């Protein structure tokens, strides 16, 4: 029996890998997820059988309670709130790993048995990473749900404070790893890890949260991986590192999409990067042309192709369904309509795709930036809905712009550009957008949902 246990854990790891692999196509993704879930079931059942459980009540209570909370949240959450949900899930994964490591350490202390150096090091890492993941995710959650201001929170001497804490953490890690049965330093480490999670995330702005969630996603995996070393369980090591790798890749994709280094995202607010914001806002920009939905309908009547560029503003206005209606109508009128999705559209990687899929937009219509950019010059109408920085041409040309170098959707190269926007306020990055002043740009002021519905009526009647 006991030799079957590692085989069972291996089987669950294989199911995770195959499941993740099936996520590479929308056709197989749902089955892949089910496969990964079955891998988890294998791991759980194996553990329960092998343990010869002492306290069934406690196990059952914990499993039922956790499952109920998880299921409730998963079934109730709005798709717009998915980033918050994932932040909280990251946090619970991280803290679970840290708690397991803590329980192990306390068990060793109870038996007055010295763990090996590898085990105590792994306990330190799991506690540290798990603790940071917990509070970091909570802060990310608060920022994403706007229960906390999205602006970076900075204070004088922040770097010095963080550096001192950093040194303190290293010392503590060393103390705990070398003398694990002295529990004093361990408890301090727990406290410092929790504090560090807060301090690392508060200086990061709301717009950078996609990077933070991806990174915390990676941490939750690495914490599980460290716990694998604590328990000497290869299943945990494999699964944890898969998740760690996934988070690292997503973090990199997000950073690339904003043309920023990870260091800049994490520590940028400490420097003087903020100053760029005011520069572009004041100068002469030329005139803005304000139009109505009826004007747009005239242009649409001569168009054969349209690319819709949704931004988070569309999601905030809950305009996804109205947008899908407009897209369907345009298709009926013989206008090829697709959606251009910037990698950082929305508040987490891939968020915009989920929002549009929820509104029943078929996924073939959702085209990623690299594939659609070359098509803007042959496109009659680009319709920008609640997106701003990701369509700002100064990212291409203006070396002085704070967003210079960021990959953007080249909407300004389309024949006509409609920009639906509430007002002329600059976007999240506080950068003025020359697109709004272009000859071929028509601004339609209003909230995304109302304007799109007006467009639907105008196009239908024209």
């Amino acid at each position, binding site marked *: 029996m006991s030799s079957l246990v590692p085989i069972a854990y291996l089987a669950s790891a294989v199911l995770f890998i195959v499941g993740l692999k099936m996520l590479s196509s929308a056709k197989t993704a749902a089955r892949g997820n089910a496969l990964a879930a079955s891998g988890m079931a294998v791991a759980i059942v194996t553990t329960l059988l092998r343990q010869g459980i002492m*306290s069934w009540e406690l196990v059952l209570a914990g499993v039922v309670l956790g*499952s109920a*909370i998880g299921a409730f949240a998963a079934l109730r959450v709005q798709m717009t709130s998915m980033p918050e949900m994932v932040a909280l899930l990251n946090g619970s994964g991280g803290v679970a790993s840290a708690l397991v490591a*803590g329980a192990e350490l306390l068990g060793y202390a109870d038996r007055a048995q010295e763990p090996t150096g590898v085990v105590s090091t792994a306990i330190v890492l799991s506690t540290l990473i798990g603790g940071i993941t917990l509070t970091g995710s909570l802060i990310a959650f608060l920022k994403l749900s706007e229960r906390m201001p999205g602006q970076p929170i900075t204070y004088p001497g922040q770097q010095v404070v963080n550096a001192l804490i950093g040194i303190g953490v290293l010392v503590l890690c060393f103390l705990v790893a070398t003398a694990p049965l002295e529990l004093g330093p361990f408890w301090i480490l727990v406290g410092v890890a929790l504090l560090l999670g807060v301090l690392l995330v508060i200086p990061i702005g709301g717009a950078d949260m996609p990077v933070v969630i991806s990174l915390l996603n990676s941490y939750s995996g690495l914490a599980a991986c460290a716990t*694998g070393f604590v328990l000497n369980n290869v*299943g945990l090591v494999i699964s944890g590192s*898969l998740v760690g790798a996934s988070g690292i890749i997503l973090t990199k994709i997000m950073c690339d999409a904003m043309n920023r280094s990870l260091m800049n995202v994490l520590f940028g607010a400490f420097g003087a990067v903020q100053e760029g914001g005011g520069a572009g806002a004041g100068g002469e920009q030329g005139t803005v042309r304000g139009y109505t939905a009826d004007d747009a309908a005239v242009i649409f009547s001569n168009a054969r192709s349209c690319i819709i560029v949704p931004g988070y503003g569309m999601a905030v206005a809950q305009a996804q369904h109205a947008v899908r209606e407009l897209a369907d109508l345009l298709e009926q009128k013989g206008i090829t309509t697709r959606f251009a999705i910037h990698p950082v559209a929305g508040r987490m*990687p*891939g968020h915009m795709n989920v929002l549009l899929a929820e509104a029943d937009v078929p*996924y073939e219509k959702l085209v990623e930036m690299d594939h659609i950019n070359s098509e803007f010059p042959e496109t009659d109408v680009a319709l920008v809905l609640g997106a701003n920085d990701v369509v700002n041409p100064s990212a291409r040309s203006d070396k002085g712009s704070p967003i210079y170098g960021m990959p953007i959707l080249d909407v300004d190269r389309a024949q006509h550009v409609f920009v639906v926007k509430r007002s002329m306020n600059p976007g999240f990055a506080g950068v003025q957008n020359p697109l709004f002043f272009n000859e071929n740009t028509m601004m339609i002021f209003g909230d995304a949902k109302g304007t799109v519905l007006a467009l639907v009526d105008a196009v239908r009647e024209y």
Partner: protein
Amino acid sequence: MLSDPAVALTVLVLSLFVGIEIIAKVPPLLHTPLMSGSNAISGITIVGALIAVTAENPTISTAFGFAAVVFAMINVVGGFLVTNRMLAMFRPKRDDK
């Protein structure tokens, strides 16, 4: 289960590479479900939690284990369910209905 930490380290490094290879192929279309799904997988720490909660003499470490079971199950059940909910919405072009 395995005595040599070097073996676990080898496994770690190899699985990181496997992870990077597989996940780099996931299209941006599915990045959100990828994140919630892989997040659910990090709930594998439930294995450790179940071991911890069943430690022989009930101490504070049992309490830690219990809390770990709860959090890990939130992670596992919440993660897989919400991923499933999202993936159910991704459908190809409606040509038949």
